[in-house]
């Protein structure tokens, strides 16, 4: 122990301790040593698992024993692209992710605007807590509560009928899925949008007003373009989270509500076909790569 302590470089001590002299001589060594553990973790856990996933996608399973057969082939990808069902599922997933993202952007912007630019400090704290409050509860509990609202004898139909309207009957449909996703991911859109709106300099807004721009003009030409990277940053969350989710489609989706996540889940959990699941999991990665490229063009990473 004592030896170890002595060998450890001291933060201050001039040239007396040989190690600090060493670090002084090679200034790149200190950050290298500092970064090695997290970098190794990143490479091993993030990168290696992705590479394994990519490799596994090119294997197949023995149809009978469902054991993995390491024979290099592209059968899984051919199935995904040639089978109309998978094409439908992929486009359904992308459309769902886009619809959820658009809905959340529309809902989050006025809310974030109020939080960042209108509300008092006290109000701001309260609203922040309100936005984050749902994240304290379990994801499953929140989805199940939506089932209680949307199902046939649920709150929604009951309320509609008690004011004399026909029941909506949207439980277990893609509409239900869209509602639940939009609700669940909303905080992930509000927070980056809020951060971006808060950073819009008041001086620019005042300058625009001084030059005769009315409120809407200021919003459209000054605030919105400056806040857009925040919205795009939020959309990365809502889009990618929807793209990979399987719990909501299983619980609130109906017949014909499979998403990419559901297919991955059933191939791992039910069919035990890991290679096909891996191939299917590459699809959202590819979609997100394209999405992130576009987001980067729109300056989303500066807003994160």
């Amino acid at each position: 122990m004592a030896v170890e302590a002595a060998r450890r470089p001291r933060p201050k001590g001039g040239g007396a301790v040989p190690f600090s002299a060493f670090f002084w001589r090679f200034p790149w060594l200190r950050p290298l040593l500092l970064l090695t553990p997290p970098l190794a973790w990143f490479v091993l856990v993030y990168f290696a698992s992705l590479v394994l996933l990519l490799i596994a996608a090119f294997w197949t399973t023995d149809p009978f024993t469902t054991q993995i057969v390491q024979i290099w082939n592209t059968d899984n990808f051919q199935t995904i692209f040639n089978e109309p069902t998978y094409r439908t599922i992929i486009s359904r997933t992308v459309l769902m992710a886009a619809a959820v993202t658009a809905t959340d952007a529309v809902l989050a912007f006025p809310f974030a605007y109020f939080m960042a630019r209108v509300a008092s400090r006290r109000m701001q704290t309260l609203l922040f807590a309100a936005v984050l409050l749902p994240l304290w509860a379990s994801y499953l509990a929140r989805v199940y509560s939506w089932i209680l609202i949307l199902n046939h004898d649920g709150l929604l139909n009951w309320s509609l009928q008690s004011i004399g309207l026909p029941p909506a009957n949207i439980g277990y449909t893609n509409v239900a899925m869209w509602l639940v996703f939009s609700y669940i991911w909303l905080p992930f859109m509000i927070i980056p949008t809020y951060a971006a709106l808060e950073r819009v300099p008041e001086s620019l807004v005042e300058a625009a007003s001084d030059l005769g721009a009315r409120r809407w003009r200021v919003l459209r030409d000054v605030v919105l373009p400056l806040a857009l990277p925040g919205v795009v940053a939020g959309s990365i969350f809502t889009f990618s989270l929807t793209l990979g989710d399987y719990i909501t489609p299983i619980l609130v989706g109906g017949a014909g509500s499979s998403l990419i996540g559901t297919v991955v889940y059933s191939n791992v959990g039910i069919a035990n076909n890991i290679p096909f699941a891996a191939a299917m999991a590459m699809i959202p990665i590819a979609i997100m790569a394209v999405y992130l490229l576009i987001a980067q063009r729109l300056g989303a990473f500066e807003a994160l």
Partner: protein
Amino acid sequence: MKLGSLAAVLAVLIGLTACGQTSTGGGATQEQPPTANIKPPDKVGPGEGQLNLIAWEGYTDVSWVKAFTQQTSCVVNAKYAGSSDEMVSLMKDGGGGQWDMVSASGDADLRLIYGGDVKPMNTGLIPDWPSFDEYFKSPPYNTINGIHYGISLQWGPNVLLYNTKKFPNPPTSWSAVYDPSNKGLVTAYDYPITIADGALYLSKSQPSLGIKDPYELTKKQFDATVALLTQQRQLINKYWALGSDEITLFKNNDVFLGAAWPYQTGQLKASGAPVEETIPQEGATGWGDTWMLATKAPHPNCAYLWTQYVSTAKVQAEQALFYGETPVNTKACAQMEALQAGSCAQYHANASAQYFSQIKFWKTPIATCDDGSKNCIPYDQWVSAWTTIKG
């Protein structure tokens, strides 16, 4: 490290696959599984103190496990599996020297047997085996060429459950779940083996297809079944994956008709829901669970002691009532009645041979048909077809 161990595991798996392929028989007798020549023990030695089980949730409930541990000093460590396929994957490599037994359902059994993951068991060591119902002594899903790869445990039919308010006249045929006039009222089990339900219906409604066994379908028969179920999707409001899901669906009037287990019927009736179950004129599919012994079981004596214990009439009755299923031990009926009056008849524990003849028990669909030809559609295609059906 990670890659190395993965490669090792895969190497073993590939070795096993190769083993599985060496024994190609065919003809009148079925293909011999790789573990067929492992001789089971003649007597049960003293317990090893531990027993590692893969089980369905509720199959190792403390209410009967406690007495077992007291009697045998075998401590039961159970892992609950969520699906048959999870059981198959946990049992890879003969249980890996970790697992002793698995409570596999019929749709997993042949995969475990032909994967070499389980080995023959000596029924002579199970004192209650002679009182098992005749069918469950040697059902085709766990007994190959007269060799028993496990001891039957419990079973249940996939009945047709319906809401008596919506359907005052009980449906007499499975055609009700394929009838377009019931659009939006229907549910079905979200699992590839459900394809067999469609095949069973077609075997009666379209005899020209020549379906004899709903688990052995030729390409033509399989395609016709998939087409039927794809049409059925338009009628489905929601597929159910867990028994509790279906109970919620029926309670909230989201669905009014669909395949179910007697467990759901019992729970729904107990909560006052207006439901009833029936076995329609076409018959029904069913499941039968088996305790199977891992090829590399580290505690075989405890495993035999466990199988003896769960086969006794008392434990059979307790488990049946706890889970909502039917014991294979015919002596369990009286015990069930003692625990809960009327339960023996409710779960068909006193069922006649005529009742069994209506039920086609789950078994793994494999490429080899009963006649030895290789024309049947194997399980992996059932799985991908199921994805297509659900859309």
